[in-house]
């Protein structure tokens, strides 16, 4: 007598044998476009599970990241915020350094173009403490050869004159100060007249007769008659002309950026300086920024200004 084989055992064997042959079929068959059949089957069979798994995993991860991992996120946000602040500060510092480099390059360029001209560059370390005066303090003094009434310029144009000299520093009276000014002339007509400050960002050209033809946009340069500034240093641009009796009212925008000075050049001589290659900047609007008011020394109001009568 032989026991009846287990039905389940034989069914399992049947399934196994059939499966083995299916796999054998798949290994043999190669579809031209999609490779071997077993690969097609494997990919087709796995695709729904992979897609479902990816969807489920994404959901779970999303829930975890957005609801359970906020503690880490908060810490990361804090760290990123700190890093962002640090980067902002770094950017600001780099921008400042880049700007400073530009200025120094401009000074260097100016010095290279005027190699024989005795000049000394200075850094603005302070400005007037109030709005009553417009002065700056530079880090050059007697030890550097700076003396009173020396002209102070930038590559853009005239800045002012030295009104007080100390051992290592000096004070400069800006052209825009009420006491400041320089002998000037219109570049085209060569009409002369002093340019003086008004206490505002713009200056005024005085003593130009009504019959003189003055146009807005005309350039004004130093005349050299004040014995401080050499000739032909840009002073500014005419931005407004009003008729008057007996003189025109001419408003002048400074060529140098007097409200944003950081480095200047002190002319140690009154030899003429040629600005042939440098076109004075044309600032078309009145500057609105007031000079910094930190760390300035008192201004000596008794220092005579360079004015020129017609």
């Amino acid at each position: 007598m032989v026991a009846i084989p287990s039905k389940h055992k034989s069914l399992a064997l049947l399934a196994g044998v059939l499966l083995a042959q299916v796999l054998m079929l798949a290994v043999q068959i190669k579809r031209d476009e999609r490779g071997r059949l077993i690969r097609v089957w494997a990919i087709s069979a796995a695709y729904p599970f992979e897609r479902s798994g990816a969807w489920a995993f994404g959901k779970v991860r999303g829930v975890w990241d957005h609801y359970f991992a906020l503690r880490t996120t908060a810490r990361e946000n804090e760290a990123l915020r700190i890093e962002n602040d640090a980067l902002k500060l770094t950017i600001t510092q780099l921008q400042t350094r880049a700007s400073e480099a530009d200025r120094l390059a401009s000074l260097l360029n100016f010095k290279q173009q005027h190699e024989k001209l005795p000049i000394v560059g200075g850094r603005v370390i302070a400005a007037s403490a109030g709005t009553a005066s417009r002065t700056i303090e530079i880090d050059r003094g007697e030890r550097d050869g700076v003396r009173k009434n020396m002209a102070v310029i930038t590559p853009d144009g005239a800045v002012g004159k030295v009104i007080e000299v100390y051992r290592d520093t000096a004070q400069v009276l800006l052209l825009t100060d009420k006491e400041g000014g320089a002998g000037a002339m219109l570049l085209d007509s060569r009409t002369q007249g002093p340019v003086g400050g008004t206490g505002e960002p713009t200056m005024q050209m005085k003593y130009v007769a009504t019959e003189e033809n003055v146009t807005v946009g005309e350039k004004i340069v130093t005349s050299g008659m004040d014995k401080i500034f050499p000739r032909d240093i840009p002073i500014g641009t005419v931005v407004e002309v009003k008729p008057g009796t007996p003189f025109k009212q001419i408003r002048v925008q400074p060529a140098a950026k007097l409200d944003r000075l950081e480095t200047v050049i002190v002319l140690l001589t009154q030899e003429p300086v040629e600005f042939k290659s440098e076109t004075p900047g044309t600032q078309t609007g009145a500057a609105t920024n007031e000079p910094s008011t930190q760390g300035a020394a008192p201004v000596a109001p008794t220092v005579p200004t360079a004015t020129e009568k017609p």
Partner: protein
Amino acid sequence: MNDTFELRSGGTHIEVHKFYPGAIVVVAVAALVFQAMAPVYFPKLSILDLPLLVTIYFGLSRRNPSTGLLLGTAIGLAQDALSGPTVPLGFYGMGKTVIGYLASSIGARLDTEHPAARFSLIFGFFVVHQAVLVVVRRLLLAQPEPWMNVRLAIAAAVNALVGTVLFLVFDRLRRRS
């Protein structure tokens, strides 16, 4: 070793036949060789499926599903191997596997010794075998395969008739007590 065994299934007693040593192998090989060679000389004989008939017979006689399906697998794979490169291994193998399992399972429950019963069973198994081939062709291989047509119906009948006669010959291979 006894020539026959008695199965007890629900109170029904069915004999399990044993064969002379090597009889199954010889018959199976002969069927395969004949199936491969006969159509060369007698193309109309291609309508016969002797490996299928051998699988059915020994499945019905042995009445052991495991043995039956393994025998069907072996015969089917051999038939695949002899059918040329256009027939992948496993094509007939799966068909014969299923038939071997079904024949053994049915043989363990029914008396399959009567010629009429054998004719009917062979006809039915031929149809099932064809169904398995269709499934394999269409679903697994993505190839066209007719489900059933007149030729197949005739083939089923011819195989059933030949099988019924052939089984009588095979019966002589059984060991007798």
